[in-house]
């Protein structure tokens, strides 16, 4: 187990390094630069700015400075917003994205648990058919369409009832969060529902479930204790990619609902070619996702000894 753990952590560190390096070099291929965008800057000021941000140094040296700062946890200063450090930007906006993402994840998990269970218990009857159909539609409709539909629905509902049941967009109060979180979680919910339904059906005729039934345990107990508990394992194994999906899905949902999260900020930074913000955010997101995936892989290995052993051997 120890060797597996060390191996995985080493791997994660190398991946984060790779993300940082790839981001750095990708950014230097970008045509155009933020200092000369739109408005013409006098040559002297341009040179000063170049020197200030270290853009006049050779690429190798820039890379070393960048890595050195990165190791100290310093992402630099924004190009377009003077005196604002990227660390500040991330700290301020990521909390918003994190709240939204966490709620979306909770929605997705609860929904998947309920719909997946219902579909597997009433297998091949109408609740199952309806769930399968719903899943199929939900994975085929882009998240921004769901977000737009939700907004349309909220507008109609507010007009119909005559008072503001839910705000259409924005951020700031609890009522702002429900619609975007639900829309963000919907695709993930569908994906997890399909997975859970499949694994519940697979575990339904496992010997230990049959044994529990034969011992005369009440059906709900057989289901919760023996069937669901084991069926949840595959869900655990996809939690890493799931969280990655919710994180990047936030880019769009934050955009549609005008939520000041890091995803929306990232998209704006890309449009403005704010190098340091793009690099900082990408490395931050990359590290975040790699660590999340690692954490859930380790959790999975801890929860299911079979994985641990088989991976130790390879």
């Amino acid at each position, binding site marked *: 187990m120890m060797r597996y753990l060390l191996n995985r952590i080493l791997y994660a560190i190398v991946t984060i390094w790779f993300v940082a390096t790839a981001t750095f070099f*990708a950014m230097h291929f970008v045509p155009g630069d933020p200092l000369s965008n739109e408005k013409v800057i006098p040559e002297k000021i341009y040179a000063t700015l170049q020197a200030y941000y270290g853009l006049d140094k050779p690429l190798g040296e820039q890379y070393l400075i960048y890595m050195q700062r990165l190791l100290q946890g310093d992402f630099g200063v924004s190009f377009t917003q003077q005196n604002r450090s990227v660390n500040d930007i991330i700290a301020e906006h990521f909390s918003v994205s994190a709240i939204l993402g966490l709620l979306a994840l909770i929605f997705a998990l609860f929904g998947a648990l309920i719909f997946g269970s219902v579909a597997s218990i009433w297998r091949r009857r109408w609740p199952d058919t309806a769930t399968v159909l719903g899943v199929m539609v939900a*994975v*085929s*409709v882009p998240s921004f369409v769901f977000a737009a539909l939700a907004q349309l629905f909220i507008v109609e509902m507010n007009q119909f009832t005559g008072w503001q049941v839910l705000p259409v967009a924005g951020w700031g109060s609890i009522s702002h969060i429900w619609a975007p979180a639900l829309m963000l979680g919907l695709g993930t919910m569908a994906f997890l529902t399909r997975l859970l339904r499949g694994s519940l059906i697979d575990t339904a005729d496992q010997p230990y479930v049959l044994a529990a039934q034969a011992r005369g345990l009440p059906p709900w107990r057989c289901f919760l204790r023996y069937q669901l508990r084991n069926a949840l394992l595959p869900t655990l194994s996809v939690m890493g990619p799931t969280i990655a999906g919710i994180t990047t899905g936030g880019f769009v949902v934050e955009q549609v609902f005008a939520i000041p999260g890091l995803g929306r900020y990232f998209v704006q930074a*890309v449009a403005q070619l704010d190098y340091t913000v793009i690099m900082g955010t990408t490395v931050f*997101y*990359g590290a975040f996702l790699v660590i999340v995936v690692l954490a859930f892989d380790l959790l999975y290995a801890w929860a299911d000894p079979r994985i641990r052993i088989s991976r130790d051997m390879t």
Partner: protein
Amino acid sequence: MANAADHRYWATVWRRLKADRKAIACLVMLVGLILAVVAGPSLWSINPEAQFLNQIASSPIGSRTAIVVDANELWTGPDKTPEAGASTARLSVIEANTEFVRLSWRQDTSAKGYQLYRWSEGMNAASLGMPVAVLEAGDSWYEDRLNLRPERYEYTLLAVDELGTERYRQQIRVTPVLAMSEFDAELASIAEGETTIELPAHPLGTDHLGRDMLARLLEGGQVSLFIGIFAPLMYMLFGLAYGATSALIGGRVDAIMMSIVDFVIALPFLLFMILFRVALGTEPGESGIAALVIALIALGWPSPARLVRGEILRLREMPYIEAARLMGAGQRYLILRHLIPNVMGSVLVSFTFAIPSAIFTEAFLSFIGMGVVPPAPSWGSMCNDGISRLLTNPHMMLFPALAISITVLLFNLLGDALRDAMAIRRGAD
């Protein structure tokens, strides 16, 4: 002999697929969709870039008959000026069409000036709408020619004092009639003496710049489907070659090649799509399609590579491969005759699932403005155009969103059916 067995395998898959009515329906619809998108622009010959300025953001349903009006004539107020000084000033509409809305009111001696506002659907219900004009105390009429559309407007005339403080207001509702100026009508070669003209048909309406939605949807479909099919095809082929090479060489090379795969897979996909897309950039006049395809290929190839390697390693242990080898089959024969054909099943299934995910990615990126560059349409960028006008012109978002959803749904259903049909191989193991 292997050939015959192989033939039988694909024949069985096809037979199973044919028995699945849902799968065949999907297949037929997808072929129809692709044909429509490919052949559509030559059948529906309206230029997707042409702007119909008389029909900006017109909905798919509604009248297309426009009256012809003389819009060049300078209006000098109503024929009969309402008498000044009456106690209540009345706002009235002299004429209302999409070329001009002519309003007049009785002057009020106590007012030192007027402000005119226009409210339309989609504006804040509590507001008066857009300020149209600030008028002098002596004015008793106004002609509004600003961007009129055949929908309901509410004009508000505020009578104000010297400081601009409101004294009282009058409101009137107007729905302008669809109209065309004489000059435009002559360009559209209207017959002599006709007073109405049929505007060109737009079965799906027009967008906010007056472009035909159907034509744009077809051209956007070409872009979206090209990216969605070509990019996965390329990275599937590359992944196939890479995975097969890695599995067949084995040893250290295999380990190194697979750790590269592990790296690329560990990269956050959409984040790097955006990065690559930005790094590749677009010169003025470029559509950004090539950049998207390159980025998709650069990030997409590892999963088929891993899949193919795994399959080949599994197949190599199969008794029939062993038998072929004992009978003196060379490496080349084994690869071409046994390994590649047997891997094709799983590759085909994952290709079918890769298409909707590539279409999704394109739509996602175009939606946040990182994909296809305007004026080239794609379904994603059309959704982006549509979402800001969702409340006033829902059709602008509806049709591209439906196109994406239906296409992705069909590919997903086909993929499911194909996977089920392929499962015979697993059952036979």
